[in-house]
């Protein structure tokens, strides 16, 4: 079959509506008689609520209703957490606070008014009497003796202790020539999708149906959870993810507001809209990262790493959101990275703090793992006087060792790690750069070369490993006119699956891209699905599309044989949109003719149902493991501490590529978010639990001027896990780039004897380190 589309840099089919301003995000949705909600949030990180007085607000102009926690406690169930760890402490998480507030930004009351201005006015009229309590913001302090307790009922801030071991870690350390250890911080980050969250809800009393439009990555999972929270039958609840303006994990959740706005719509009998302000987005949409690690490596003089021991503290925040406790366990699973390190011990302590919950943020636990390990590789190289490349090459498994078993219990599907690193070194001109670095140092100039080799766990994932199933679904529906509609359970929000899936369909069925329409994000139209996260949409969701296509083709071939009067189905071939007899290619029918015949149903083979569509649920047998090598080259100005990029080279292997434009886009975006973490971003709470970086003024996400030109390249090692050979690429950049950039800066600072600095590496921190040296 001719492959016209898969593998080609096809401009996206979804773009036209987006570049002409005609797409519909949540805030663009208007319903008749719609009213607006605004939320009063706690200004204290930890306080008892003595009284919430809403009388004045109720009397305010345009106000329709005001509700507090006490008003809705019976009607709306708690905000759910899906992950289950042994002995996990799960605090009650009401949608509006009851006796206590536990973080700044926690919802206390909601106002509904005729327009958004009036709703916000009335929020300011609610009087709350707080009894402030001492807050705990530092996770290390939180788990120490005598710390204020976030949830008194537990008597501790330790939510869980999770351990993972493989091999014989004690022996590794006994046999080591050298032990290298480092304490490091992976700071809290704020995802900052450019579209804040928002919800519109409408109740149709006649049908008894609640429709919730919300900016989410997981419409179906959300529907199930909301049905439970609201006590609604799941088939009376319709969740629609309209155009979604970025998520990065922050919309992979079930939020209090989603249930609350649904409830308001039912209770008031009018459509209700709530749109998060950017300030609210900073305060009360999930944060990411927030790990502290002490890492010890047992190494041989030649750079062989025998074992790794991690003691990790995860800052959870005050409550569990959907996956909060699960995120750091991914760090544990990936703790040996792309290396053959047979002995491992990981201990993760989850600490409650009086802050917003952490949860998935692009990479979700894997950037942390890669950062710890890639920093360690450079520290090891430094201690042993080896080149960082040498240490990495020495510890890579060989290509023929795949599927490669790790000490954490995974089986990496396929890989050639040496090749990716060699390619990156070639592109950047590694040897020459090292020479130049020496020469520049003579002149008092500080060039730094930072390497990061990574492997990530993607295509999440086999169902046993995920709380709500890890398969994905697709329906391929051939319409009577031969147009093809795809219903995918994935929920793209920028990744471009409307295009990627159309490419698969067009090639498989021999139709044009324009003949294919991909529909997603509406639970009333699309069969149950899992959603978009963990670089799974194409690898798992695309495979589901592929599987459905095979079923459609099989049926169509059967029908074509019948219509062509051929007894032997094996004698019917399908190519470029035509069915024909292999031994008599003149006898042929178009795909369109067969589709129409399937619906007209005048002449079907016995036992064959009319119509031409198929649904396929794909359950992957394993995760996929994309990998690659990134090299950052920077120059640090010793006078100012300023970091200037010279080069940035990324070689990624995400398996088979459906559309290189989309892959490059994902890689670029990921690298730049990484750059944000390495150099700019940090969610800072002060001691009393106020979010100091609560606006875009204080929290710097990268601007166009902060970013160097990115040189991307690829190797292509197909995954054996799915028939398309896809691995996934959504998070590669974010996972790889942070340590590459930090390693580059620290490499530049090596002459000053600086071994490690915690992120973000802003000029002042670098300048101080140079001065301190």
């Amino acid at each position, binding site marked *: 079959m001719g492959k016209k589309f898969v593998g080609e840099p096809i401009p996206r089919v979804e*773009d036209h509506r987006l*570049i*002409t*301003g005609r797409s519909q995000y949540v805030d663009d949705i208007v319903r008749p008689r719609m009213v607006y909600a605004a939320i009063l949030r706690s200004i204290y990180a930890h306080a008892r609520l003595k009284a919430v007085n809403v009388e004045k607000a109720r009397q305010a102009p345009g106000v329709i209703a005001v509700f507090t926690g006490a008003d809705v406690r019976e009607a709306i169930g708690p905000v759910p957490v899906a992950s289950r760890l042994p002995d996990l402490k799960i605090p009650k998480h009401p949608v509006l606070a009851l006796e206590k507030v536990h973080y700044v930004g926690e919802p206390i009351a909601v106002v509904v008014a005729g327009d958004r201005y009036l709703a916000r006015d009335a929020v300011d009229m609610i009087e709350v009497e707080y009894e402030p309590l001492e807050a705990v913001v530092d996770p290390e302090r939180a788990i120490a003796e005598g710390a204020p307790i976030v949830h008194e009922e537990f008597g501790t801030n330790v939510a869980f202790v999770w351990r993972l071991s493989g091999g014989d870690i004690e022996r590794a350390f006994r046999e080591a020539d050298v032990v290298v250890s480092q304490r490091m911080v992976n700071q809290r980050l704020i995802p900052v999708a450019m579209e804040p969250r928002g919800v519109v809800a409408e109740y149709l009393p006649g049908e008894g149906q609640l429709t919730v439009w919300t900016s989410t990555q997981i419409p179906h999972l959300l529907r199930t959870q909301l049905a439970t929270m609201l006590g609604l039958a799941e088939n009376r609840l319709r969740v629609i993810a309209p155009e979604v303006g970025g998520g990065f994990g922050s919309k992979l959740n079930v939020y209090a507001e989603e249930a609350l706005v649904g409830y308001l719509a039912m209770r008031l009998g009018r459509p209700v809209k709530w749109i998060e302000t950017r300030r609210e987005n900073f305060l009360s949409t999930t944060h990411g990262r927030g790990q502290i690690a002490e890492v010890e490596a047992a190494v041989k003089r030649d750079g062989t790493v025998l074992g790794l021991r991690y003691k990790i503290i995860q800052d959870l925040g005050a409550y569990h959101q959907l996956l909060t406790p699960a995120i750091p366990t991914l760090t544990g699973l990936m703790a040996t990275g792309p290396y053959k390190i047979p002995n491992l011990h990981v201990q993760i302590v989850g600490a409650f703090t009086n802050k917003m919950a952490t949860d998935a943020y692009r990479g979700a636990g894997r950037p942390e793992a890669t950062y710890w390990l890639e920093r360690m590789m450079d520290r090891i190289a430094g201690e042993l006087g080896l080149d960082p490349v040498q240490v990495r090459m020495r510890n890579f498994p060989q290509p023929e060792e795949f599927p490669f078993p790790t000490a954490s219990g995974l089986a990496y599907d396929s890989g050639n790690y040496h090749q990716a690193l060699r390619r990156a070194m070639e592109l950047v001109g590694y040897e020459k750069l090292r020479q130049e670095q020496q020469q520049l140092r003579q002149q008092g100039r500080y060039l730094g070369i930072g390497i990061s080799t990574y492997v990530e766990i993607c295509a999440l994932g086999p169902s046993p490993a995920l709380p709500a199933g890890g398969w994905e679904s697709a329906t391929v529906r051939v319409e009577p006119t031969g147009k093809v509609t795809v219903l995918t359970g994935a929920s793209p929000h920028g990744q471009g699956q409307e295009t990627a899936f159309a490419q698969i369909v067009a090639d498989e069925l021999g139709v044009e891209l324009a003949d294919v329409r991909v529909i997603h994000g509406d639970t009333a139209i699309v069969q149950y699905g899992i959603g978009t996260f963990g670089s799974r949409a194409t690898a798992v969701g695309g495979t589901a599309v592929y599987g459905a296509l095979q079923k459609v083709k099989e049926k169509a071939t059967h029908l074509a044989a019948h219509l062509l009067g051929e007894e032997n189905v094996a004698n019917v071939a399908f190519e470029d949109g035509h069915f024909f007899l292999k031994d008599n290619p003149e006898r042929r029918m178009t795909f369109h003719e067969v589709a129409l015949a399937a619906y007209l149903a005048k002449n079907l083979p016995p036992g064959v149902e009319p119509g031409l569509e198929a649904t396929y649920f794909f359950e992957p047998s394993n995760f996929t493991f994309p990998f690659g090598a990134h090299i950052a080259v920077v120059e640090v100005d010793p006078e100012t501490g300023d970091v200037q990029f010279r080069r940035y080279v990324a070689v990624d292997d995400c398996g088979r590529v459906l559309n290189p434009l989309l892959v490059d886009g994902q890689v*670029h*975006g990921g690298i730049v978010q990484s750059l944000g973490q390495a150099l700019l971003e940090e969610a800072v709470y002060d001691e009393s639990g106020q979010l100091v970086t609560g606006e*875009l003024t204080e929290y710097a*996400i990268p601007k*166009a001027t902060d970013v160097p030109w990115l040189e991307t390249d690829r190797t292509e090692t197909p995954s054996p896990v799915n028939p398309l050979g896809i691995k996934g690429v959504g998070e590669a950049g974010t996972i790889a780039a942070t340590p590459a950039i930090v390693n580059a800066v620290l490499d530049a600072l090596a002459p000053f004897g600086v071994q490690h600095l915690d992120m973000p590496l802003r000029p002042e921190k670098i300048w101080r380190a140079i001065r301190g040296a």
Partner: protein
Amino acid sequence: MGRTIEVTINGLLYRHDVEPRLLLVHYLRDVIGLTGTHIGCETSLCGACTVLFNGAAVKSCTLFAVQADGAEITTIEGLAENGQLHPIQEGFWMKHGLQCGYCTPGMILAAHQLLSRSPDPSEEEIRRGIEGNLCRCTGYQHIIEAIRYAAEKIRVTREGGARSK
């Protein structure tokens, strides 16, 4: 308590009574119904709400609707002419200059101002020209390529037009 304003938006004249505190961006979105102009911060930091205001790119969340009295405004919906994409829109499409699309209308209009001032911008100039517009998805590189594509396309069209005269 309202005030009457007259504003030309995408070539059409509108007359409305508006509250003095109504932000221009809310006027465009909620009153006129042109929702292509997005809101990412309401505090003039993200650029999602960028429109052309008497030809200059402004953040429409920093203006009140009353300040637009007598102004001519172009929003993203008004950029394509007769169904023909503007070269900048085409550039964003061809070069994959968008992912979620939320920053895109503002980004395109910021690029519009940049190209009207500097028809053949360098990479550096483009980066500076869109510095006030945040994008969390693309890493900006494809946006830069999109703007270069547009610059080239506009140049070729102009030269072609000049020759045919």
